[in-house]
């Protein structure tokens, strides 16, 4: 330690760095009683989060150093810090990565804290389940949400038809699309959902299948994949959905590039918790409805997904304080009032009840949508295998584009998808 300080002082003195010393060159010391928190999000989320950590500090004396980044940069930084053995004590975790981090010991199981430090008595069972990997609890859900169609109500009004509701089927969407085409609105009814993983998942679940089994195998076969791509190809040929070129503008980078915001389609697959964010970008009146049914009366496609978790680093030296903070975050009513539904619908019942009367209109729509899925709701799927993210981003989206641009037939694409997905799965597990 002495040596290190000396070396630093030497380097500072021996160069022009002295000038910079006053502002940024503070020594890094492991400060007792402080924990580090890293999360992704925008300033609004940060303000709410810091509000809660200040409250936590004033009540317990334990300080939380929070830092936030955008989604893409977040994983680079978290990966680097984890590899360097310097992971933050508490980190925000996504459904897509929790298995990866858990099976490699980068995040710690929290079971030992449940009951005493971590109070989960009135926590939604499916949300607890969502944070489990190999029967151990690795993440505490910060909110529930569900997939949902985002609908531009103003556009439907202009075309003069009723907006979609919980009973709308894929066949109904086709009719709505024809109504759009015969109007002069210059907008398609629907975006191209053939490369949207949750939409494929929802479509499979309505048939009693699933994307991935509990063993991490593919939960469907070539026939279903071909049928899926063929269904979208028919919609494409009938001119119901946006063109391949238009859909490719949406690179998944930001909300502003999506089909609804670009006013290229009236509806698109999205998530319940994003309604508020989309509305802030548009003047048209937006709302949400369920994903289409494959036929009248079929259900079970939706589920209440943990929008994000808090996890505790495996390398943390203050796991208990970290767990205490997580507990405060999801259970304290005063904290919940600061947080609102920005991360999804709170999972503890007493928090939800305290919060419900205070919400604005769009937040209430989202809350009610998630609370009233009824027959649309199916069981929570097992956590996806580590390779799921790669299959989604580098296989499903690419093949759906190849079909849309005419480089492959739906039959060929379906076969290639199943084959490629099995290949990636076997590579990841080896």
């Amino acid at each position: 330690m002495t040596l290190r300080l000396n070396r630093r002082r030497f380097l500072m003195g021996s160069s022009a760095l002295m000038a910079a010393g006053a502002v940024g060159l503070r020594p890094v010391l492991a400060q007792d009683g402080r924990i580090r928190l890293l999360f992704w999000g925008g300033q609004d989320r940060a303000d709410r989060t810091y509000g809660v950590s200040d409250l936590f500090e004033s009540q317990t004396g334990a300080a939380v150093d929070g830092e936030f980044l955008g989604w893409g940069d977040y994983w680079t930084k978290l990966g680097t810090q984890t590899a360097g053995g310097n992971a933050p004590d508490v980190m925000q975790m996504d459904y897509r990565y929790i298995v990866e981090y858990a099976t490699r010991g980068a995040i710690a199981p929290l079971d030992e804290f449940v009951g005493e430090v971590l109070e989960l008595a009135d926590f939604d069972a499916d949300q607890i389940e969502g944070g489990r990997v190999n029967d151990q609890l690795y993440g505490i859900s910060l909110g529930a949400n569900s997939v949902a169609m985002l609908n531009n109500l103003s556009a439907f009004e202009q075309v003069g038809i009723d907006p979609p509701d919980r009973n709308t089927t894929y066949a109904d969407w086709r009719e709505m699309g024809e109504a759009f085409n015969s109007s002069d609105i210059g907008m398609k009814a629907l975006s191209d959902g053939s490369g949207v993983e949750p939409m494929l998942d929802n479509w499979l679940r309505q048939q009693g299948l699933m994307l991935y089994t509990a063993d991490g195998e593919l939960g469907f076969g070539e026939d279903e994949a071909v049928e899926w791509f063929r269904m979208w190809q028919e919609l494409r040929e009938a001119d119901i959905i946006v063109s391949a070129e238009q859909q490719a503008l949406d690179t998944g980078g930001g909300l502003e590039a999506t089909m609804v915001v670009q006013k290229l389609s009236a509806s698109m697959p999205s998530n319940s918790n994003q309604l508020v964010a989309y509305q802030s970008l548009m003047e048209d009146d937006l709302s949400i409805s369920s994903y289409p049914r494959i036929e009248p009366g079929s259900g079970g496609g939706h589920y209440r997904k943990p929008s994000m978790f808090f996890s505790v680093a495996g390398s943390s030296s203050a796991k208990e304080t970290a767990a205490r903070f997580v507990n405060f975050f999801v259970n304290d009513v005063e904290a919940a009032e600061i947080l609102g539904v920005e991360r999804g619908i709170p999972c503890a019942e007493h928090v939800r009840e305290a919060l419900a009367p205070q919400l604005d209109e769009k937040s209430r729509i989202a809350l009610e949508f998630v609370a009233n899925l009824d027959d649309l709701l199916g069981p929570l799927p097992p956590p996806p295998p580590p390779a799921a993210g790669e299959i989604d981003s580098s296989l499903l989206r690419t093949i759906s584009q190849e079909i849309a641009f005419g480089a492959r037939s739906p039959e060929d694409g379906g076969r290639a998808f199943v084959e490629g997905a099995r290949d990636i799965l076997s590579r990841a597990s080896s």
Partner: protein
Amino acid sequence: MTASSLESGSRGAGNKVGTRNVLAKIWQQDGPGYMFLLPWLIGFFGLTVGPMVTSLYLSFTDFDLLTDPNWVGASNYVRMFTADPKFAAAMRVTFFFVIFSVPLKLAFALLVAMLLNRGLRGLPLYRAIFYLPSLLGTSVAIAILWRQLFAGDGLVNQFLANFGIDGPSWISNPRYSLWTLIVLSVWQFGSPMIIFLAGLRQIPQDMYEAASLDGASKFRQFYKITLPLLTPVVFFNAIVQTIEAFKSFTPAFVISGGTGAPINSTLFYTLYLYQEAFGFFRMGYASALAWFLLAMIAAFTAFSFLTSKYWVHYDD
């Protein structure tokens, strides 16, 4: 030249003098060079060698960022060449980008630099304006700008519509998307332009005056004076821009949202490397990709240096 004649002189006398004198001679001969090189040597051994060797080692492992690496031999390299279609796609995209963007960018930069070097009024303003796009660099605003320009209803197509041309959505059509990145690269031609300008200013003006007295045309002057005298700078710019183009990352990352979409048409080599390393946790494989890239660039650079003596003119 002086130093090397000294060297041969000292070699001849070396046998007779004592060790002390030999050391003194060595110091006299190599000392100043290494003294000047010292900061770089410290940086090289202190900060660069370690990480480089580590990454070479990791390229023979299955390192996943989160757990300790295991030795897997050459299997990362084998997989690259035998079982990875995305690697092949990334190679195609990268070579296409390098082959078109580098010459276009250099030609454009040289052309503008020569226009600006003619002693026109308002030179500083022009120079600054032409540098402005490069100032935007890697900003996220670029992604929004480019979509605004090259989308189906973007500005480029609005312009083309005046001539009755119905343009495609350039940025999201796999046939053209890479070209929008080439345009972006050429648009940001500021740094080679500045270097060309600095080089042009070192060419003695009286050479042109003598040439025009002899009745040499502008074109001939360019061909006989400007280009030969500028070759060290052309060489520098060509090497650096090619290396940069091979390593190019941010434009594709920002514009395709890190995906290389549509249909891998903008999957730059380094973007693929980044996906493998930080998206899919395969740092070992990514390190192998990096070292193969380094080998490719090194081969290109060595080739350029070998051929440079036939066309690069140094003042010695």
